[in-house]
């Protein structure tokens, strides 16, 4: 069966599965719409959280990032897993005990202030929309590459599907579709990895295969390091970022993860405080299955790419610089032709010999440039996009067509599950926090549910529009979403739980300062709506911290301002202090409720 048809069938089947699950688990009350009725088993919630959390970026881009940055890329791997420790021990159990529907609701109640609640809604909407635009774009791209339809068609199909189950099913619907999506995406990620680990190292477990040996008995990582270094690249197992910057980025990603509203609300859906703790652990188990596979996928895919274009990259070794070693462009395999059409792979015959020389021409060490010149190389001729490492991985390794089709379904599952989670927190913030909480306190449950559905529908449209017509900053959304969550919501929630005396003046000014500073810094260097005001280079950075890591400084400012202001203003009322004491004790937790 040809690849395109097979891909249509497998992706189509996965859609039938999601729709079936959504119909089975549709929501009938606000409790079901916002928190899935509060009766989700902690393991099930862990799996749903994993799918909710792992976006198109985790699925498609992370292995490629690690493949080319070496373990400098693993700041993402660490930052995105370490956040779950913060969630489990600092936030999830207490917020579950609080037992309400949304993150702004906690902030509004804890700080006895509608203003605080509205500021939190603003933070939430900004974080979630920037994030969801990237997801919709991801859906469109996967569709267009694998199913050969244009991005718009892919986008509309994805929107329709998310619309169907997020609007109909609410939190209950997306919880169970996310479980199905997790299963699809994890198989799609690990099956090719197992095949490739077997091919290269003879060990079916990619995590162990990465530390295994190639046919000649040489350790695989040593082999890969030798090859890439000989071709002028940095060793796979090395890193090149400055220490302070790694520190800041890692911290911002961790605290940002813990402060992302669509992740936090998942912990409102379990029955007990106890379950919220263990559920965070389960989420990390399910995430770690993919994340520990990623470095292996990155390393082996990179090895395979080199082996494809240079015949001297074999277990026994050979002369990488010999003329015959470089692949003849005319003899390139089918997958290279296919990916050239997408623009993710580019060949330019700089020395006109009809062969592909793939190496690092930015390497200026004398010995290396001399060897490259002696071999008649006139510059690197192959440009490989990071994302290929996962998307083309099965094709590069010559795996059967159904595996390639499965990867397409997995990429779509990763993007859809995250998009649905984000759209739901946006709709809850509008119908529950703004409408019921601020503007129409006496709205009936039925009308609130309708408003939630309408808000979700509008949010899908806006997300689709942003995905179709990205405002030029989709690439920067990670810096934005994580930095803002880290600097605004995370410290404010944390202080709300661990400081009994933090008052509303402190919390509001802290949030605004954290948000404003981080937003301003990113704008200053990245220039989202305006031209950047300074070049985004280390020499210009504050303390040498890049915009990706500045959320850490924002978080510190937030806490300092909050503490100072709260000392200078009226103390926190007694009944609020009692509420905080109550949050700290598990006994008496009920189902999540609205009052």
């Amino acid at each position: 069966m040809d690849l395109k048809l097979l891909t249509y069938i497998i992706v189509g089947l996965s859609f039938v599965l999601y729709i079936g699950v959504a119909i089975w688990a549709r929501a009938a009350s606000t409790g079901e719409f916002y928190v899935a009725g509060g009766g989700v088993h902690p393991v099930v919630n862990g799996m749903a959280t994993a799918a909710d959390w792992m976006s198109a970026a985790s699925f498609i881009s992370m292995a490629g990032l690690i493949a080319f940055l070496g373990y400098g890329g693993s700041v993402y791997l660490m930052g995105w897993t370490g956040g779950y420790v913060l969630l489990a021990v600092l936030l999830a159990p207490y917020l579950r005990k609080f037992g309400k529907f949304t993150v702004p609701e906690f902030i509004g109640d804890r700080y006895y202030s509608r203003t605080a609640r509205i500021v939190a809604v603003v933070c939430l909407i900004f974080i979630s929309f920037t994030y969801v635009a990237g997801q919709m774009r991801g859906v469109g791209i996967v569709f267009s590459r694998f199913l050969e339809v244009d991005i718009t068609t892919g986008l509309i199909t994805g929107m329709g599907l998310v619309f169907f189950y997020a609007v109909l099913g609410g939190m209950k619907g997306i919880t169970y579709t996310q479980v199905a999506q997790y299963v699809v995406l994890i198989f799609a990620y690990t099956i090719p990895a197992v095949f490739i680990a077997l091919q290269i190292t003879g060990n079916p477990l990619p995590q162990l295969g990465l530390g295994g040996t190639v046919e000649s008995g040489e350790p695989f990582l040593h082999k890969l390091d030798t090859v890439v270094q000989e071709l002028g690249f940095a060793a796979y197992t090395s890193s090149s970022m400055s220490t302070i910057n790694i520190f800041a980025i890692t911290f911002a990603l961790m605290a940002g993860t813990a402060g992302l509203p669509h992740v936090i609300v998942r912990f409102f859906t379990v029955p007990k405080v106890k379950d919220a703790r263990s559920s965070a652990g389960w989420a990390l188990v399910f995430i770690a299955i993919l994340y520990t596979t990623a470095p292996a996928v990155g390393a082996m895919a990179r090895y395979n790419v080199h082996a494809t274009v240079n015949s001297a990259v074999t277990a026994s070794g050979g002369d990488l610089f010999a003329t015959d070693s470089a692949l003849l462009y005319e003899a390139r395999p089918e997958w290279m032709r296919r990916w050239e059409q997408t623009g993710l792979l580019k060949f330019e015959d700089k020395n006109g010999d009809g062969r592909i020389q793939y190496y690092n021409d930015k390497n200026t060490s004398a010995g290396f440039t001399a060897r490259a010149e002696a071999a008649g190389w006139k510059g690197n001729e192959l440009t490989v996009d990071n994302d290929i490492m996962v998307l083309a991985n099965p094709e590069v390794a010559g795996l059967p067509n159904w595996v390639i089709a499965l990867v397409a379904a997995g990429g779509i599952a990763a993007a859809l599950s995250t998009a649905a989670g984000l759209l739901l927190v946006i709709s809850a913030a509008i119908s529950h926090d703004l409408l019921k909480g601020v503007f129409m306190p006496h709205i009936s449950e039925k009308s609130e549910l309708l408003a939630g559905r309408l808000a979700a529908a509008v949010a899908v449209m806006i997300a689709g529009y942003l995905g179709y017509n990205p405002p030029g900053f989709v690439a920067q959304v990670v810096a934005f979403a994580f930095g803002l969550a880290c600097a605004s919501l995370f410290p404010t929630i944390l202080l709300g739980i661990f400081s009994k005396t933090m008052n509303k003046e402190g919390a509001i000014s802290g949030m605004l300062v954290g948000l404003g500073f981080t937003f301003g810094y990113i704008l200053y260097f990245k220039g989202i709506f305006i031209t950047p005001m300074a070049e985004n280079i280390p020499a210009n950075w504050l303390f040498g911290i890049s915009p990706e890591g500045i959320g850490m400084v924002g978080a510190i400012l937030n806490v300092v301002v909050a503490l100072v202001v709260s000392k200078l203003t009226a103390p926190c009322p007694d009944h609020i202090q009692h509420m905080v004491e109550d949050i700290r004790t598990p006994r008496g937790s009920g189902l999540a409720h609205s009052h």
Partner: protein
Amino acid sequence: MTLTARHRAYWRRNLTLTLSLLALWFLVSFVPGYYATALNDIVFLGFPLGFYVFAQGTPLVYLLIIGVYVLAMNRLDKHYGVGEHRR
């Protein structure tokens, strides 16, 4: 609710546990970066150790931290009688 001495003791134990686990979290997250090059000279399971710590070691330690937290908190809840009733 009224806060008893028992509640205070529970919260103190909780804070001690949380802070110790966060200290461990900090240690594995931020310290190996400084010694990565030196660690890479040691081979572990066929990996240069520094690389292993980043690629697989830290996520596993994170899991361990959460596991310890869940078990220890369940015991604390029971010991101080503040756990949730079975429904």
